[in-house]
């Protein structure tokens, strides 16, 4: 069990916490200390985390409900919503397939360069999103590698949707993989080996044995990937060209509205994303909890 805990302690907000149901200790800190720490923490949370959310929703309705709805009648706003959904609808499935392939590859085999690959998968989390955008501009932009060729063939990648999709994929591809790797490593291969001795081939093992085992971890990764894909700002900003009605996602549209001092509208759009964030947190917590349960169940009957 100890080894499982070690493998599961991946950093950042995408760790699956296997120990959340450990019983409280009988001996501990005094009441005074506890009260102090809890209050301080509460104040910190209220000020730092809850307050911004409140401000977003307050700002959204600051000019009244009618103005709020008016924002969403604006065609540019509508387009930005559609574009955000489109980009997410393309990047999330692609990254999910990648995440499954990468997690399978990295947890089911031993090979040289495996740890390097794992580190490489984490790369986008360390790199500024602006750099992600920069990279694609360098490849596809007017002065980029493929610039002249693209111009000849009238294909637009930068300042068009394909570039934004690519930049979003870059920034979000680790999430599904990172959700799956510790889970699959901790679950071990015994069930897959058993299936192998019973005559199953690779796809059958993946489909019938592995995917059902990891479904909550997979969901967890997809939820995070989606949240980030819809909310991405820096990378997409560089690549998009900010063309209203063509290449504005919701975050970019918020920026435009804000810079034009249309604060209520900006917050209105932001509130939708804020709501998405709250839903993400709720779904993520549930998926995390179910994944822990799944892990505990499988470790019961198959632990080495």
């Amino acid at each position: 069990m100890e080894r499982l805990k070690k493998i599961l302690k991946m950093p950042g907000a995408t760790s699956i916490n296997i120990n959340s149901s450990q019983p409280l200790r009988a001996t501990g800190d005094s009441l005074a200390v506890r009260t102090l720490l809890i209050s301080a923490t509460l104040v910190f949370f209220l000020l730092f985390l809850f307050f911004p959310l409140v401000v977003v929703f307050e700002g959204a309705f600051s000019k009244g409900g009618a103005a709020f709805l008016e924002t969403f009648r604006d065609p540019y706003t509508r387009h930005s919503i559609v574009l955000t959904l489109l980009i997410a609808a393309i990047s999330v499935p692609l990254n999910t397939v990648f995440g499954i392939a990468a997690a399978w590859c990295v947890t089911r085999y031993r090979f040289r360069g495996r740890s390097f690959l794992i580190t490489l998968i984490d790369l986008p989390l360390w790199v500024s999103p602006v750099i992600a955008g920069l990279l694609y501009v360098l490849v596809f932009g007017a002065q980029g590698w493929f610039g002249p060729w693209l111009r000849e063939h009238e294909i637009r990648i930068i300042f068009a949707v394909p570039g934004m999709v690519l930049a979003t994929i870059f920034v979000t591809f680790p999430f599904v993989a990172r959700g799956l790797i510790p889970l699959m490593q901790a679950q071990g291969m015994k069930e897959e080996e058993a299936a192998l001795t019973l005559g199953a081939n690779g796809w059958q093992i993946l489909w019938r044995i592995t995917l059902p085992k990891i479904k909550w971890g997979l969901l967890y990764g997809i939820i995070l990937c989606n949240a980030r894909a819809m909310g991405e700002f820096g990378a997409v900003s560089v690549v998009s060209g900010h063309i209203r009605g063509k290449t504005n996602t919701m975050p970019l549209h918020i920026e435009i509205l804000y810079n034009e001092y249309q604060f209520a509208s900006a917050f209105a759009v932001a509130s939708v994303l804020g709501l998405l964030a709250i839903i993400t947190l709720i779904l993520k917590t549930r998926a995390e909890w179910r994944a822990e349960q799944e892990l505990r169940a499988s470790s019961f009957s198959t632990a080495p």
Partner: protein
Amino acid sequence: MSIAIQNITKRFGLHPALREVSLDIREGELIALLGPSGSGKTTLLRVIAGLEFADARDGRIFFHGRDVTDLSAYQRKAGFVFQHYALFNHMNVYENIAFSFRVLPRSKRPPESAIRERVTELLRAVQLEGYEKRLPTQLSGGQRQRVAFARALANRPEVLLLDEPFGALDAKVRKDLRRWLREFHDLMRLTTIFVTHDQDEAFEVADRVILIDKGTIQQSGTPTEVRNNPANSFVAEFLGLTEKHDPLAKSECQ
């Protein structure tokens, strides 16, 4: 089905788990691979199953004269029972046992009625009739192990491999299952190899006992032969047959 193992070597990194092991197993034998932990017995079993590949020397494995050395586990069709059962937790008992039929290519797959018949037959053989719809998490350790047996036997493998099958169970259950295994084997006469570190188990159940230590076979023979003529000091000490009055050694009260 007879099994011939020739010159199998396997290293894990720098550690040699198996050193040029050769072994012949006759059809229908019930063999115990007996040895201390780290002796290589589980490795040998997994190599036979195709769950490990031996190092590329001249090692070869033959099932009934057919060279299976390069075949993957799912092509060898050796039934395998894992120490901790490895049941599919998201499937009920019926689906676990039916699994090997489900993964057959469509042309070879029997109709559902035939599958149902076979599963029921197996559940009866392991004394778990009526448990079809239970999930593995709802079963006791002994019950899970019996399901694992049934699952491995479903599609009539020609050899049955057991990796410390009773190691995770408590004493009473272990004795019952041991007896069951012996009876089952007498009935089916299926070539069976099981790995254990418990000599009582090996001697009680097996036709032939093979002692392994440090990756090499120390002795092979019927329980009586081995008891009466230990081939070397390892065998003698492992079985507690030495004269030394070491309080930590197993005492032989025979």
